[in-house]
């Protein structure tokens, strides 16, 4: 491993920024369609659970422009797109539907409008069966699970609990979240010769789409190529959920021998694709009067929907983060991945981790209220130590702990203590408006817990003119992965960034890739690209050696020039000479994360390569007459190690925080009694707007931080961790609500903390019809 401090850190602009603002960046729906392209659309069930008694598609078939109907019989391979191989997720439901909005057929027409209209003409009769749309109903109905639960255990909880002088028990309800990527799902399939098909898919996981399409078509994986240049947002929502659309497009394209595109409208996208899991966390905690936790026993029940999808690893990760930054001397954590008659929930930025963190922070908060302490003091008492008290519930040692310094610095820079005192004073004299403040930490484990996913490939070609073509297995969804990786390559050869051509992710260039997920994009693909560069450099050193008459000659790359021996020449000239000398100028780089392992059966291992840290102070104001609230100020100090691109990393932090704030405040998913999702468009599902951003929004990187592990340039992953900084907003809202009863009672707000929840909590604390006003 070379020393990395020779590179200057620069904030390159996003490689596509100019194209974004010009409207010339091409998303899949913008690709020029070949003549004859037709359009598919899905017919969705209108029953949450039931047998299909009859399905009359004659009106669909007769509708204007319709070319054909698609059904399970059109799928040559298995009618299944379950990403974990449990065979529990059909492309088209047959006989039995398991959620309101489940695809039951497809229709292909000349135009998308025609296909969309036709899909609504189906006449389907159901024999309804009892359904459970939420966790409580699922538990009441026997608690069927979609996948195997996990238990994490360390120490003897029963003994430690009994020995603890103080106890409390509680329950926290944590809501789900729709991804609301601005570009909805889309796939566009173009049939080729033999079994071949090319699928453009808006996906974070092209390799999985490739496998799914191959399975559905019953062809070899090598017949299917999946490509995408960029997504209009992913956030986890396109990790497995793209499979459905890609498979339908590919099946239709092969059937009709014509290009087929499928793009659901926003409502169908929200109804028919998975979301963040809702959780109900039940906990018993034993603690001392200092606030120190001695024992924790908690169960994490999740609304998984009708199939497993990624619910296993998601609920696992909730347990992995149920400690957040805190040491539990004795602990038992269990997951209950419950089956419900709702869309199958899936990956979403944080992947269960945020729900674990919310529970940890609620437990701390409850202890603080019980002891009449500042929650920050309780946090400090429980932080992982550096030399002791540093073993997680999954038995990994936390060896890179910097949470103390992060929190200490943020406490001072945000003026937390003074502001907290002022808020308490303000609340005494303000009958209607109440304020609150909260400081919460984040510690987030980096690596896929599916250890084999922690690998990546890259492909680098240097052409004869010295221009470089860069390809890797990561996908671009806005996070700036491509420009980060391109910068690494540019710096290796001391070239300007514009010498590096960033190209579309494609399964025929880099095979067997992992999803761009788990914040791993730059860690994995950056290292793979670096490996490719090193291979090329090694060959070029050998070539330089030939020139100067040695076995190998060290080559220095500087400002577009190549220097070795007494030679100094432009990079392009050097490359041309290398080509003439028949040096291979293409390399496939590879990387796998070292030192990680995980034994799920035992619940023990080292699932994470390292941890990323951060902390956030949020200040809020509520109106006790209406529950209306706003976030006034936010101060964040976040750890990205040695940043690969400070501005892009700040963008991830700001964006992650605001997305987390939306999850915890205004983004409410509502199902009705029939099991129909009622919040399925921006008119009914409210993600944050510009005016929801705090008036004062200070975001700083922990400049001093450097990843002790040998990551790419000692950086740290940044995609997911900042989302959890928004936990501070909930705690601040909680304090504002608690003020109406003199901070004696923890309001135990469920999330999202909507104005309604704030008001009803105020009413409850103030004991019915209040005299608060």
């Amino acid at each position: 491993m070379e020393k990395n401090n020779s590179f200057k850190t620069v904030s390159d602009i996003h490689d596509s920024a100019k194209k974004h603002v010009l409207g010339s960046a091409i998303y899949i729906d913008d690709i020029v369609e070949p003549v004859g392209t037709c359009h598919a659309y899905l017919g969705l069930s209108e029953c949450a659970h039931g047998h299909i008694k009859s399905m009359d598609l004659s009106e669909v078939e007769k509708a204007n422009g319709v070319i054909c109907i698609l059904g399970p019989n059109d799928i040559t391979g298995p009618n299944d797109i379950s990403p974990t191989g449990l065979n529990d997720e059909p492309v088209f439901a047959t006989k039995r539907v398991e959620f309101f909005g489940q695809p039951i057929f497809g229709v292909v027409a000349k135009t998308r409008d025609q296909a969309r209209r036709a899909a609504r003409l189906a006449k389907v009769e159901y024999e309804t069966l009892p359904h459970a749309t939420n966790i409580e109903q699922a538990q009441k109905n026997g608690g069927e699970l979609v996948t195997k639960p996990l238990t994490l255990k360390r120490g003897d909880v029963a003994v430690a609990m009994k020995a603890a002088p103080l106890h409390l028990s509680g329950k926290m309800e944590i809501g789900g979240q729709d991804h609301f990527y601005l570009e909805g799902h889309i796939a566009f399939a173009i049939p080729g010769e033999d079994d071949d098909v090319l699928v453009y898919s808006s996906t974070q996981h092209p390799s999985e789409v490739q496998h799914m399409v191959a399975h559905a078509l019953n062809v070899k994986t090598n017949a299917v190529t999946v490509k995408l240049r960029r997504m209009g947002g992913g956030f986890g929502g396109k990790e497995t959920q793209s499979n459905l659309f890609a498979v339908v497009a590919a099946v239709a394209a092969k059937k009709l021998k014509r290009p087929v595109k499928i793009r659901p409208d926003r409502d169908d996208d929200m109804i028919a694709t998975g979301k963040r899991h809702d959780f109900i966390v039940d906990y018993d905690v034993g603690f001392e009067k200092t606030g120190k936790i001695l024992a924790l026993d908690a169960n994490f029940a999740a609304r998984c929907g009708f199939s497993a999808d990624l619910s296993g690893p998601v609920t696992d990760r909730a347990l992995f983060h149920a400690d957040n930054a805190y040491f539990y001397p004795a602990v038992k954590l269990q997951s209950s991945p419950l089956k419900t008659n709702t869309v199958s929930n899936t990956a979403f930025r944080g992947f269960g981790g945020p729900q674990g963190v919310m529970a940890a922070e609620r437990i701390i908060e409850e202890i603080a209220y019980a002891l009449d302490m500042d929650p920050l003091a309780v946090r400090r008492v429980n932080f992982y130590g550096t030399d002791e008290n540093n073993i997680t519930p999954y038995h990994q040692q936390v060896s890179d702990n910097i949470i103390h310094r992060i929190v200490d610095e943020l406490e001072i820079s945000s003026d937390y203590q003074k502001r907290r005192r002022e808020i308490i004073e303000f609340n005494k004299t303000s009958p209607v408006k109440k304020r609150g403040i909260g400081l919460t930490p984040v510690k987030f484990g980096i690596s896929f817990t599916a250890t084999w996913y922690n690998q990546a490939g890259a492909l680098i070609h240097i052409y004869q003119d010295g221009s470089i073509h860069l390809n890797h297995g990561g996908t671009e969804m806005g996070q700036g992965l491509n420009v980060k990786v391109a910068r690494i390559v540019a710096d290796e050869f001391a070239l300007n960034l514009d010498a590096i051509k960033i190209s579309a992710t494609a399964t025929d260039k880099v095979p067997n890739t992992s999803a761009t997920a788990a914040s791993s994009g730059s860690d994995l693909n950056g290292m793979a690209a670096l490996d490719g560069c090193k291979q090329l450099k090694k060959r070029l050193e050998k070539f330089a050696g030939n020139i100067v008459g040695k076995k190998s000659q060290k080559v220095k790359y500087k400002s577009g020039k190549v220097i070795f021996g007494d030679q100094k020449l432009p990079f392009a000239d050097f490359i041309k000479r290398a080509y003439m000398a028949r040096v291979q100028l293409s390399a496939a780089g590879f990387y796998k994360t070292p030192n990680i392992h995980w034994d799920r059966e035992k619940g023990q291992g080292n699932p994470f390569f390292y941890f990323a840290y951060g902390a956030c102070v949020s200040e809020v104001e509520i109106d006790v007459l209406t529950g209306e609230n706003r976030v006034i100020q936010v101060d964040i100090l976040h750890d990205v190690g040695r940043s690969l691109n400070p501005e892009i990393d700040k963008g991830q932090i700001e964006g992650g925080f605001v997305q987390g704030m939306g999850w915890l405040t205004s983004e409410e998913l509502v199902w009705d009694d029939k099991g129909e999702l009622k919040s399925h468009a921006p008119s009914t599902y409210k993600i944050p707007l510009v005016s929801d951003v705090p008036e004062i929004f200070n975001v700083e990187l922990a400049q001093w931080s450097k990843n002790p592990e040998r990551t790419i340039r000692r950086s740290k992953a940044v995609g997911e961790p900042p989302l959890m900084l928004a936990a501070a907003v909930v705690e601040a809202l909680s304090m504002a609500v608690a003020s109406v009863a003199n901070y004696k009672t923890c309001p135990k707000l469920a999330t999202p903390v909507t104005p309604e929840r704030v008001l009803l909590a105020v009413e409850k604390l103030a004991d019915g019809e209040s005299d608060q006003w």
Partner: protein
Amino acid sequence: MGADSVRKSIRFILNNDLVELDDFEHTQNVLDFLRLEQRLRGSKEGCAEGDCGACTVLVGRLVGNDLVYETVNSCIRFVASLDGCHLVTVEHLKGQNGALHPVQAAMVEQHGSQCGFCTPGIVMSLYGLWMNNPEANQIDIETSLQGNLCRCTGYAPIIKAAKSVLAAGGQKIDPLLQERNKIQSRLRELVDNKRVEIFTDTTKIFLPADVDDLAEILLQYPDATIVAGATDVGLWVNKQMRQLPILIFISHLSQLQKLEQMDDEIRLGAGVSYSQAWPIIAEKIPQLDEFWGRIGGGQVRNMGTIGGNIANGSPIGDTPPALIALGASIGLRQGNKKRSILLEDYFIAYGKQDRQQGEFVESINIPLVREGDYFAVYKISKRRDEDISTLCGAFKVRLKGGKVEQIIIAFGGMAAIPKRAKTVEGALIGAEWSRQNIGLAAKLMEEDFSPLSDVRGSAQYRSLVAKNLLKRFYLETIGKSSDGEDSQVAQSAGAA
């Protein structure tokens, strides 16, 4: 109408080019036209319901002697309504040498895009702001972006981009400004004051020549759908896939866009958009200023009309509660027959209004708040901006000797129609305007309303807030606004 007074096509300028269409899907929206017909794919579809703003374009139209450009959601705007307009898309912004427009450059420099899908719409909204309001402050920036969702950035860099381009000034190099005179004269050449009729076997499009012509067409086709801003009708088509065989477009009728100020009232044509009305509303009824900025987003305010907000009879329309509390009346017209009714009498039941076959809303008369009266309106929603009311309460009270002489309380979102709280009002009339009486009267809210639970809020929440809003109003009239500072909102008009 004679053949020479009818045109069988619509004409507009798309960026640089004149477009004339005489055969197109009658409900085709502008976004589909751009993306599918013109292959201009910079504008994106994010929601197809006018909420996300990824499809934002500018529409320039002649208003008196001016050429006015406004941001609109191309996904819910109908192509037919573009007659006589200049449609400007994101593709038109770059300079001839391909250089970025200053707004685009600022977005790039400030890292204002991540996934980039919302970006063309954001660029167009910021452009609209930069062009029309070079002095914009933070609140103006937020207001200009109320109709644009971004899921990646958390908006911080977008706000920075807006500030930096505004600070840099430079509106003189604006490409639209440079071509403005030329466009203006090209648009003038298109004005022929003719009725537009585009018929197929099953559909009809009308663009009346003037209001009399509108009245005539409506008599002939009383089942026709009137399209003003299309912020509602656009959704009927995109979301409910309604067929709407006969469409009458009225957004071009300047007679319906008159704003008149009398001594004690404002008279608005039914086709006046929220944006057009905002300045006069803010000046004459300042208690409505902030509220007005919470109707839809900028694009929706530019398109949507107050007449449409009323005429459709929605129980959750933003303006009716306030207008009812102010005692507004509406002018209705059927052929040449005109009548005027109180707005509160217009709403009869859910989906049923006091509007006859072939009749249309022509104008809205809004009495000003009398000196000494208190008036306020409160919109409660899950998200502060660009959301539909969970409930909306409007209050107007006249006190005499500390007692209530007259009070009107009207709510949206509490019943099947915008409705007054007559029991509460009755209990307060003649009573002392006191904390105790307010507390007692608030309890009676339950006799006036039995609200529903839905995606926006529970019945319990609605009932509770309705009571509390009366309390808030009371506090503001006695000078204790809910911010703990002196009351701003419920000031009497005399002090305004």
